[in-house]
């Protein structure tokens, strides 16, 4: 255990206080577990820890992992140009930008659509396994990793927006059209599921495991 970690008496939970998720008011916990408690300041439900944090987050992470497969295999755009049809997946879009010399754009899409979702799923799974094993390994770094995961998740929506703008602009009909493919639906589902997963995970569990040792 790290020497800098203060004793368990200094957390709100250890002092019988509940920190409101919504407004941050400290409320003395006068009721037994299981009874509904509401914040006197903002009327949000009070919980010492997010309810069923681990099982909810696992469910969302596993669902996102399953959706990640069709999101990458199915086309996100279907382009018709002079009678020929071309279906593009996320990866073939990245390769297109690389071949045409737009390296910056290729890197942005690759990171936002491929690296970030995988990294989020790996990091969240790793955090949950470490919490379940009551690990005391580098809690501060794990907390930072969690914050990073929460902050970067939204950028994965990039490809969904690209498809939206493309279908809006290219609808001339007589020469070329771009249509949204089914892949983009699965892709949007992955982004939403991983964002909710990051929200249901309670980072306080990282520190709880440390204190009870």
């Amino acid at each position: 255990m790290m020497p800098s970690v203060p004793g368990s008496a200094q957390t709100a939970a250890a002092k019988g206080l509940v920190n409101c998720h919504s407004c941050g008011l400290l409320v003395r916990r006068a009721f037994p577990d299981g009874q509904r408690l509401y914040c006197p300041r903002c009327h949000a439900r009070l919980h010492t820890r997010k309810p069923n944090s681990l099982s909810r987050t696992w469910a969302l992470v596993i669902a996102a992992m399953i959706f990640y497969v069709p999101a990458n295999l199915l086309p996100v755009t279907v382009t018709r140009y002079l009678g020929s049809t071309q279906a593009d997946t996320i990866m073939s879009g990245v390769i297109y930008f690389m071949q045409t010399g737009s390296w910056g754009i290729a890197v942005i899409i690759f990171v936002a659509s491929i690296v970030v979702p995988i990294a989020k799923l790996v990091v969240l799974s790793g955090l949950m396994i470490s919490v379940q094993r009551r690990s005391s390994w580098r809690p501060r770094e794990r907390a930072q990793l969690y914050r990073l995961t929460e902050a970067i998740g939204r950028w994965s929506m990039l490809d969904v927006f690209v498809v939206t703008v493309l279908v809006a602009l290219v609808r001339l009909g007589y020469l070329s059209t771009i249509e949204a493919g089914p892949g983009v639906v699965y892709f949007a589902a992955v982004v939403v599921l991983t964002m909710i997963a990051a929200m249901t995970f309670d980072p306080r569990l990282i520190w709880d495991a440390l204190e009870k040792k």
Partner: protein
Amino acid sequence: MMQPVIACHECDLLQQVKPLPPKSTARCVRCGALLYVHTPDTIDRSLAFAITGLVLMLIANIYPFLSLESQGATLETTLITGTLILARQSPIGLAFLVLLTSMLVPCILMGALVVVLGSIKWGQRLPACRRIFRLALALRPWSMTEVFMLGILVSVVKLAKMATIIPGTALFAFLGLVFVLAAINTVLDPHTVWEKMVP
């Protein structure tokens, strides 16, 4: 009056609230999470940015967004066009998600701030303020105007070889909105707002 003690929302550690010098932030000593910020006039500044943002959003929806010129024909699009076409081509949920993250959430967020901060500023205690402010805070991660802006940039690069793309007034208003929303995120201190709302 400020609470003398707060708990870190990410690690639950109890910490003393100390007065901060202006434009600085307090972080948790144990996990490094952001605890509170001190912005001078956080209410006034956030309110001003929220009103600016709503005006920009209005402009972004009235004027043409992007125009595409190809084979002598010009096609104008507005901000909502993409969503409408997407709604016809794919499940309605996807179009709704795009509408939500690019326009509805920013609008609700800024509208909620105007109501809540305005009611604090002018001393009108509206009963629903606490619920409205709670909604605004919960919606914050779902506002993705900056990601949308990057999406526009990528699409323009992709189409640049096929046709000429002419930026419209709405595009510049939307770009301004990205900065306004970023500014709201920096100046808004929810702790101060809660303290002033419910003394």
